[in-house]
């Protein structure tokens, strides 16, 4: 039956549609192919999540080769949830892309864009779904290579340098991950994640395993832009095309956080990651610095996309902080924030994309009176900003709530205070924009502009609307996060 092959189709559909996009060449046709592929991915990932919730872990044997020798796609609650996040963001931004991409590129290059977008989507979904460590590296490189291309398509020539820098740092990160996987293979003789976990648990921690652990953690931290390995991120997000910033900010780093969770909790176990290795202290210190330093830098940015990029680094700090607690509430905060931050940041980047579509600038000084000139877009940006601060009735509040609970469970009171203090920095950088958008008068020489077309406004509001909806109806997100956190910590096995 076709439903049995959903795990494979999740990857195969976007992967095969990418060359189709390339071949049809026509801008509307290639857009339609991308639209169909990303919506099909969303439908499949939703179905997979329901299946996992109903009947537990799905194991799919690729080409019917039995694991651990063949490649296995293994879907449990946590990666089903991440699959849903990635494909949902993909499905929402692609209608937005049509107008935005037409505006930002020359018409003749549009199909290249959709091709790389689909490859990137396939790569990100592949990283998430696979149960094989080396396969994970291959998909990671598919998604990274296509995201370098997507970033380089930005209009400003700085996009090229940003993409090049990302390429260099991303490749170093990926190579570190391969070294780690190679050392694990040398020690255990297997690449299947479930098998790796079993064999690693059976033997004492050797120096090889320790080295593999170090290489993997550093490599993945580069990919997820953990302070101080974040240097590639601000320029890459600031100069990429609007739709690419929204898509990558909402998915790429989230998938890397998922990979970190997968390695720390499933492959290595908690005792190794946080008992024998002092990783909780390291992650705690780095993520707290990220929360403060990146938020402080965000305050001084004039380019709003760059400001949001720095804010992303701070928000990734919150997720990693949740991991460092290594308890149920901390992991719940991390998983919830994966989802919540994807909604808020995706929505805010899309709102900036709308503004860029009309005034061709994302600089703070050109935002004067935007609250009256483009009321709906500005309101979307404002609500997203409230979410970043963590105001009640936005999703940001939910994740920070669990994060503070996690800190208290762990007995780290000062950290709970630091979480609240760093939120104040978010108040400052969001307020700066709100002040310019709503308090300053519209400049006299500003041309009359209208709101953007509905095909751009609706996706923006879907993400922002969802970021309010999931703050009120938390049943799905908190339920899944709770089960996933227990699963990762081995309580639910």
């Amino acid at each position, binding site marked *: 039956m076709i439903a049995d092959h959903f795990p494979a189709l999740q990857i195969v559909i976007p992967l095969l549609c990418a060359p189709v996009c390339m071949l049809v060449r026509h801008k509307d046709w290639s857009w339609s192919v991308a639209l169909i592929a990303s919506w099909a991915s969303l439908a499949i990932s939703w179905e997979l999540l329901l299946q996992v919730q109903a009947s537990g872990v799905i194991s799919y044997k690729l080409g019917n080769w039995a694991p651990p020798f063949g490649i296995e796609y293994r879907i449990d609650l946590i990666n089903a949830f991440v699959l849903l996040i990635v494909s949902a963001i993909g499905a929402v931004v692609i209608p937005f892309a049509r107008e935005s991409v037409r505006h930002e590129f020359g018409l003749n290059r549009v199909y290249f864009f959709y091709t790389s977008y689909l490859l990137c989507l396939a790569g990100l979904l592949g990283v998430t779904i696979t149960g094989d460590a*080396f396969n994970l*590296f*291959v998909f990671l*490189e598919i998604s990274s*290579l296509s995201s*370098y*291309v997507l970033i*380089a398509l930005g209009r400003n*020539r*700085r996009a*090229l*340098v940003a*993409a*090049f820098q990302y*390429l*260099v740092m991303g*490749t*170093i990160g*990926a*190579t570190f991950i*391969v*070294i780690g996987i*190679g050392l694990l*293979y*040398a020690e255990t003789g297997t690449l299947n994640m479930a098998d790796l976990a079993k064999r690693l648990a059976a033997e004492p921690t050797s120096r090889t395993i320790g080295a593999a652990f170090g290489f993997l953690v550093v490599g993945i931290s580069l990919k997820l832009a953990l302070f101080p390995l974040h240097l590639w991120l601000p320029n890459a997000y600031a100069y990429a095309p609007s739709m690419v910033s929204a898509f990558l900010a909402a998915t790429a780093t989230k998938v890397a956080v998922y990979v970190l969770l997968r390695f720390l909790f499933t492959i290595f176990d908690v005792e190794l990651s946080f008992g024998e290795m002092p990783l909780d202290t390291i992650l705690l210190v780095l993520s707290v610095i990220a929360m403060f330093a990146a938020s402080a830098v965000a305050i001084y940015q004039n380019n709003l996309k760059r400001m949001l990029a720095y804010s992303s680094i701070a928000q990734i700090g919150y997720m990693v902080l949740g991991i460092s607690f290594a308890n149920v509430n901390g992991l719940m905060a991390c998983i919830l924030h994966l989802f919540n931050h994807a909604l808020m940041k995706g929505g805010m980047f899309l709102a900036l994309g709308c503004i860029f579509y009309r005034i061709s600038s994302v600089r703070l000084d050109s935002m004067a009176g935007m609250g009256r000139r483009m009321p709906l877009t500005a309101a979307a940006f404002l609500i997203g900003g409230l979410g970043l601060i963590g105001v009640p009735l936005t999703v940001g509040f939910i994740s920070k709530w669990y994060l503070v609970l996690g800190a208290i469970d762990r007995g780290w009171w000062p950290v709970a205070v630091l979480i609240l203090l760093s939120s104040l920095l978010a108040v400052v950088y969001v307020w700066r924009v709100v002040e310019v958008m709503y308090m300053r008068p519209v400049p006299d020489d500003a041309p009359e502009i209208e709101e953007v077309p509905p095909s751009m406004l609706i996706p923006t509001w879907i993400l922002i609307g969802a970021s309010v909806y999931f703050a009120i109806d938390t049943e799905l997100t908190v339920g899944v996060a709770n089960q996933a956190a227990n699963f990762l910590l081995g309580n639910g096995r």
Partner: protein
Amino acid sequence: MQSHIAVGLYNYWIVVFLMMAGFYIVVAQGNFIKKIVGLNVFQASVFLLYITLGKVRDGTAPIIGEGIQIYSNPLPHVLILTAIVVGVATTALGLALVVRINEAYGSIEEDEIHKQDSES
């Protein structure tokens, strides 16, 4: 069999040397082409690491045949074939970006490009 052990370890020393040399070039050089060369050296060290892992002492190629008892592990070799392909793709994309950077800035030196960016 002292010599065998020494030969076995030689490979790993070369891996470490290439890895550090490549990494140093990536970090220290401001020229984008040289950075890519450094990246290639860095990746080549990992290829060598995997290939060395798969080698079994006195082992032959993994072919079924008469009198073949010990053979090398083919899996790491196959894995690294994939990694080589990924490395080639990365190099190609990196070089393409350098060409575009050169068209846009008229330079491929990091310092020069930063100078132009801070002026504009």
